[in-house]
């Protein structure tokens, strides 16, 4: 870890101003000023020397503005400083948005969930060791133009969807695929004011791996709006991983279904562990539309979801595993009693 300046912000505009002061052309994820909330990602990466911010702006003091959960008939509003455990244990979220609660509950460990904020959670960075460990010389994400060691290296956990020839790093989180599936909107405040964008537009593709999001330096995620839909109660999260807890998913599926007489009126599908960024499979959703939910239609949706998969040597299994995970999630969601 290198020496850095630590400051606390008392309100959102002060935080954003503090972060904007020294910002240059670097992408937000590599800007010299970074926000810190739970610190569960950034402290690790600073100790590893992967991230080298000059200044950290602590936003934990914004709890009153950004720390609440509000549920109305229109939808769910989650402040960016809500802790993962707080949302996971909220009875109303568990009942009305089970996929949100489950995606959080199945992530990380109890200790991490108690610290990590929702805003920070969606910005967690890949587990690709070629990125995290700076002794590997080739990483386009860390050092643009240096190449990608993972393409022909150890890539068992890497992505098969949405990848490019510059980077195949997996987006590791669980909450984000659930947000993508439910069509959440992310609210952002920056030096130039506030804006709201579909969550699906928050993360970028692999054309410039060093630039992970569409956030500008100094922009702060303030919360998430998740619209209520006829499918939100019949929703769940299936996470398949190497061990039972405290481990990232090899393949995960966030699904929400609106069933009428056994037919799929509307389906929302997010995928995790298999994609470069939080993934929503519109193809799989379309494949299910109007179909009776059964093994065949679920399998067809899974085929559609992974039709464009581009596996490498060690992660080829993720295509089949990803399909099966989605089939399992769809059929389990179909059996839910709501």
């Amino acid at each position, binding site marked *: *870890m*290198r*020496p850095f300046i630590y400051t606390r912000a008392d309100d959102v505009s002060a935080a954003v101003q503090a972060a904007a002061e020294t910002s240059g052309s670097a992408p937000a994820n590599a800007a010299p000023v970074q926000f810190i909330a739970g610190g569960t990602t950034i402290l690790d990466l600073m100790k590893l*020397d992967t991230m080298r911010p000059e200044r950290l702006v602590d936003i934990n003091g914004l709890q009153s503005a950004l720390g609440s959960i509000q549920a109305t008939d229109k939808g769910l509003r989650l402040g960016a400083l809500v802790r993962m455990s707080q949302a996971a244990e909220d009875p109303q979220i568990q009942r009305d948005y089970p996929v949100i609660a489950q995606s959080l509950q199945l992530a990380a460990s109890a200790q991490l969930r108690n610290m990590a904020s929702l805003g920070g959670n969606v910005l967690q960075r890949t*587990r690709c*060791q070629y990125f995290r*460990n700076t*002794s*590997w*010389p080739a990483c386009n994400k860390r050092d643009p133009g240096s190449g990608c*060691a993972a393409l*022909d*290296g*150890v890539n*068992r956990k890497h992505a098969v969807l949405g990848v490019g020839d510059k980077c195949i790093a997996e987006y590791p989180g669980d909450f984000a695929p659930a947000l993508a599936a439910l069509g959440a909107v992310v609210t952002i405040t920056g030096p130039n004011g506030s804006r709201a964008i579909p969550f699906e537009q928050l993360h970028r593709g692999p054309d410039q791996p060093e630039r992970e999001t569409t956030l500008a330096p100094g922009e702060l995620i303030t919360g998430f709006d998740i619209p209520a839909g006829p499918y939100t109660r019949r929703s769940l999260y*299936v996470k*398949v*991983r*190497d*061990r*039972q*807890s*405290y*481990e990232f998913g*090899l*393949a995960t599926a966030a699904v929400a279904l609106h069933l009428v007489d056994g037919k799929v009126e509307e389906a929302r599908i997010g995928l995790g562990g298999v994609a470069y960024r939080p993934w929503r499979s519109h193809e799989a959703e379309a494949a299910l539309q109007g179909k009776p939910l059964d093994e065949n239609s679920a399998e067809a949706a899974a085929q559609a979801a992974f039709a464009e998969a581009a596996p490498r040597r060690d992660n080829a*299994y993720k295509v*089949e*595993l990803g399909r*099966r*995970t989605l*089939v*399992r999630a769809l059929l389990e969601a179909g059996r839910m009693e709501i």
Partner: protein
Amino acid sequence: MANAQGPETTGTVAPPLPTPRKTGGIGAATPRVDGRAKVTGAARYGSDFFGGPDPAYAFLATSAIARGRITEIDDSDARALPGVIDILTHRNVGDRVKPGKTFSDKGYMGTSIAPLASDRVWHDGQIVAVVVADSYEAARDAARRLRVSYADETPSASFDSPGTETVSAESKSKEGEKAGQEKPKVGDAPRAFEAAPVKIDQHYETPTQHHNPIELFTTTCAWDGDQLTVWESSQNVYGYQNGLAEQLGLEPSQIRVVSPFIGGAFGSRGSLTQRTALIALASKRIGRPVVLEATRQQGFTIATYRAETRHRIRLGADQSGKLTALIHEGWEVTSRKDEYKVAGTDASTRLYACPNIDSDVSIVHADRNTPGFMRSPPEVPYLFALESAMDELAYAAKIDPVELRRINDTDREPIKGLPYTSRSLMKCFDTAGQAFGWSRRSAQPGSMRDGDWMIGWGCASTMYPTQVGPAAARVTLRPDGAVRVQTAAHDIGTGAYTVIAQTAADRLGVPLDKVHVELGDTALPPAPVAGGSNTTASVCNVVAKACDEIRRKLAAAVTVSGGPLDGADPGRITLINASVMDDQGRMASLKDAVAKTGHGAVEAYAENIPHGAPPTAMQNLYKGQSALAGGAKLKDRIQFAFGAQFVEVRINARTREIRAPRIVGAYAGGTIVNPLTAKSQLMGGQIWGVSSALHEATEIDRRFARYYNDDLAEYLIPVNADITEVQTIFVPEEDHQVNELGIKGLGELGNVGLNAAVANAVFHATGVRIRKLPIRIESVLDAPVPT
């Protein structure tokens, strides 16, 4: 050793003895005596020692290549940082530190690769510089600002890599024979295999694994004139002392190594690493104590590891399942420089009756650091292969896997026909099998199901050599019953403090809380390396011997004319209830007894050379050489502990997650000094067995011969949620040949064979045989769902 109870005196009937106070004695389930110190933070581990009031801190810089030369180290940025004091590189170290010889070469080192001896890089993550600064933070920052340039060469990573060199382990046969590492062979195995009506011929593979003790690799060094003190967690303090003396050109007596508590070791702290001498040198150069705490990632490359292995097993049997041929060939990876090997054919050829046996071990030199001991070093990989093959044979011969073991059970080892001192293998199978419910198993693979989960049941044998080392101990008894036991043994978390205290309490007849045990310090009498599961047997026996010497001294004093037990037979004096008692039940207080000796306290120093160890064993022990005797190395007998492992796996029929919710093991280990700590030890092993089968593997980027997943987020071990039910059962066993107290080491018995039991259960669940560890989702993803 004299029996505590003398020969029966004829003609008199001794009155019934008062019920001895057994609390905390040998055989009592006793909570750890150091438990409170550990959970309250009072126990001090290596890096809790700072060597003095004003220490400096070291941080390592390690190589980013696996093979080549350092062409330049630009340290200008690093030196410019405030607080940086010194930077050690090959340019200012060179031959000031000798490489030392490896453990398997009669030395003390884990590797003979001396990292700062020259510009040469031998493996990934080799130390290339040691930065010393006023603070840890400054040292770390400076280490990262070093710019090291390399002329790199294409490295050879492992098996099948171009440029590796494969040699037969026979190249050192003379030395090997002396060390008991022969190539076990009997009869004509190839011919018998050809002729066998039932055959198995398969290849098996185990991965690279790292110990990852929770306590990081740390070293603190401080000099007082030409006297060096080293605080470092160690499984072999005398070995470290003597090894460092060789490396630094000192007399062993100039070095003290202190290691009272150890935060996990598993073999990783058995041999001396190259970092220690460098920190000693750094401390000498700057005239201050130096504290090093290596990072978790550095721990993967500056210490040893369990090398990947390959095996070919050929089993031949007749129609009844009786083995007629067993051929076990092994291949193991090592460094370019050292011929380290575990050669587990020693054990795998001694498990079952078989008239025709052959074995061979080869080592493959690659551009890696030298591997080393990791819990049950030979048995974990070699019994994975053998016990998987036995399961395959059971299916081929259509015999229940437990019955196959019974059919091939024996009371003599098959190579030389030597008798086992005790062998409770089938008792263990029957006990564990009953607890597990094995009789309810449906033999057909894929035939057991619970909803979405396919169920598989598997079993395997475990064995571990019973080894005893030479040991010394000093015991002091004061008139108030306070006992002090001193021996440089090591409590690596196994409960050594507790079992040693129990032994002294038992032999001296005092309550456990009166016994104070001091371990892990070269200022104390020597004990062997805490390896090979020998500590309880070696140390408890020598402590008992010293206690018996104290009893003899007291007995002589109290039975003299005019003494408190005047006229009693000194041979029938016992120590009990903090008193001295004769065979008539007459008691004298310890206070009076000690006073009668004319001393303020009674002290005894004892040495013990176990059966089969050379007469020079004690002299060598003071030189840090442990000379463990036992296992298959004895000329007149063979001594192993045995057990049976049973596992249930559940595999999701669709997504194929593999979980092992139920583990049952039964073990026989002779005298169990402390059932509580012994159970913990075995249970930890069982859980590690699941880890070894389903989780643990260090991935290597073969292009660069570098480790990929070098931290505990990416190197998986089971979490609590993975381990639901573990049963650990002791099968009673008495074996007074192995040593006076009848103790068979069981620290490393619990994890052996369990990996095979898991693989066998996976086969039973799916019908797919996985011969390569770890077994992961992708290993069984394509297995058809049984109907």
